[in-house]
């Protein structure tokens, strides 16, 4: 074990810490943005008292979560009850390390750096695997609370996640077919042609518009957001799987939901909307310069903001599905269309894609 390896590990740990802090800040302000935008949609003001324009509201909320009494139901299954929020937040945060958020850039002291925490061959499969383990957080929370509403929420949620994971995975196959790799960094780099406009959603051969739409719908279902928020439908199930959770444990579930929103938005941006590619940025600032990297990172964040806003917008506009509608929509519409998309893309790739 030489100094290089130790330096590498330390550097990665620092990068992970910075990324996690950044992600949690983004999550905190997404919650605030959601409350303000929803209020705007419904003709109210929303929280605007803590700090200028309500900007310190997330910290007040956090303080409240920490100081509240932590109530554990008497007949709950203790170990699983504690395990569930841990699983939820861990799986939500673990996928964060593979998303490239900027191009290769020459930084002072670090030399040439790729703006990604780690990259490996099966990055996309890693994301899918971790996401599929995330189901346990919700399912176990519902079971261990020893509450009928929680159990119903947990069951609904597991059924929904299993069903929509299929169409989610299949909608990505088109992109994988066209790019020929599972490494997210590579996939983004392949989309930087055409002055940074060769995004997979509009690429000349086999544009992945269908794949993108299916991915978006399945991703909203995967994150249990409106109109697919059946697991926590408050008119039917009180609060679903987290009815019995209070204080910081509830906050962990809450955070996990928003982190999941962020990660699926990151994946959508990376695979379909060109990741950090900003149109004409390389022409104006020059490839590999610091300004180019800065503009790219800002572009990536803007695309994320678009998706997060879309989530909030949908929540303010759409009513909730009924459970049988949800199931038949997933199995009888999304899945066949996703398979159709694969067939079309595969045919195109077989005949016209350069070998």
């Amino acid at each position, binding site marked *: *074990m030489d100094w290089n*390896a130790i330096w590498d590990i330390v550097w990665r740990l620092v990068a992970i810490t910075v990324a996690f802090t950044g992600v949690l800040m983004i999550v905190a302000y997404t919650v605030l943005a959601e409350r303000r935008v929803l209020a705007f949609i419904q003709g109210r003001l929303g929280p605007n008292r803590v700090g200028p324009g309500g900007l310190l509201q997330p910290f007040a909320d956090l303080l409240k979560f920490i100081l509240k009494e932590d109530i554990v139901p008497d007949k709950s*299954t203790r*170990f*699983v009850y504690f*395990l569930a929020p841990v699983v939820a937040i861990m799986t939500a945060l673990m996928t964060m390390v593979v998303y490239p958020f900027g191009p290769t850039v020459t930084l002072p002291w670090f030399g040439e750096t790729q703006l990604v925490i780690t990259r*490996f*061959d*099966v990055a996309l*499969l*890693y994301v*899918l*695997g*971790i*996401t*599929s*383990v995330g*189901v*346990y957080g919700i*399912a*176990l929370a*519902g*079971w261990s609370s020893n509450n009928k509403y929680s*159990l119903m929420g*947990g*069951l609904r949620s*597991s*059924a929904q*996640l*299993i069903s929509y*994971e299929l169409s989610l995975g299949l909608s990505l196959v088109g992109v994988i077919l066209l790019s020929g*790799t*599972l490494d997210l960094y590579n996939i983004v780099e392949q989309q930087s042609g055409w002055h940074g406009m060769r995004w997979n959603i509009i690429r000349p051969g086999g544009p992945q518009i269908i794949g993108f739409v299916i991915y978006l719908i399945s991703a909203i279902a995967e994150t249990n957001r409106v109109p697919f928020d059946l697991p926590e439908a408050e008119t039917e199930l009180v609060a679903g799987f987290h009815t019995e959770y209070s204080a910081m444990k509830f906050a962990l579930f809450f955070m996990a939901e928003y982190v999941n929103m962020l990660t699926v938005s990151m994946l959508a941006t990376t695979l379909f909307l060109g990741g950090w590619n900003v149109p004409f940025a390389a022409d104006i600032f020059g490839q590999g310069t610091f300004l180019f990297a800065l503009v790219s990172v800002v572009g990536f964040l803007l695309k994320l903001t678009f998706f997060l806003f879309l989530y909030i917008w949908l929540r303010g506009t759409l009513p909730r599905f009924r459970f049988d509608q949800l199931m038949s929509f997933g199995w009888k519409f999304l899945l066949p269309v996703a398979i159709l998309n694969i067939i079309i893309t595969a045919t195109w790739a077989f005949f016209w894609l350069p070998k």
Partner: protein
Amino acid sequence: MIAILFILFAGLAVGCAVAVVAQRNPLYSAISLIGVFISLAALYVMLAAPFIAAVQVIVYAGAIMVLVVFVIMLLNVEEEVRRRLRLRFLIPSAILLAAVLVAQAAFVIYFVHTRDPTPGPQDPATSDVGLTLSIGKGLFTTYLLPFEITSVLLLMAIVGAMTLARRAQLAPDALAVPGSQVLTQSIVDPDAVGDAAPVVAHTTAEAEEILMRNDE
């Protein structure tokens, strides 16, 4: 470094495997089994097989175990109660089988150690045998026939599962629109014992009429 990680995950895998058998609450067993699968995935990564590791997590930990947990939650299986041991003659045979297993493992370890030019485990940093590209190439060229046979087998399993699931159901003309009721002939007519032919009623009035006819 690799050795420390190996000991950590191997220990976790063995510990979880013991817990699967030892736990009396079925849900704890299921959670331990998930632990086994995830530790195995970590071991695969250390053996330069990241693709297999990812598939292990997606298929076993993510899909199959979710179904197991789902069923346990649905049926609300009770904790096992400790009972008096029956079938005592099985104990010596279990010991015998365990001895065979240990002997097998010992033989493999001995064989690997005595053979001098051992290839050894691949270095995960440099090897490319476990990467997606080489696995894909292998599956669709050298091992195409086994691959296709496996897929046909899986297809048969799917068709079989659907046939079994459908058999218990009613005839295809039984409508499942909300508000319609489907009764079996044996309920409507007490004389027709075991006759599961469907009698469909689309409204409550219709269902009442059918059942009233039975009362007469």
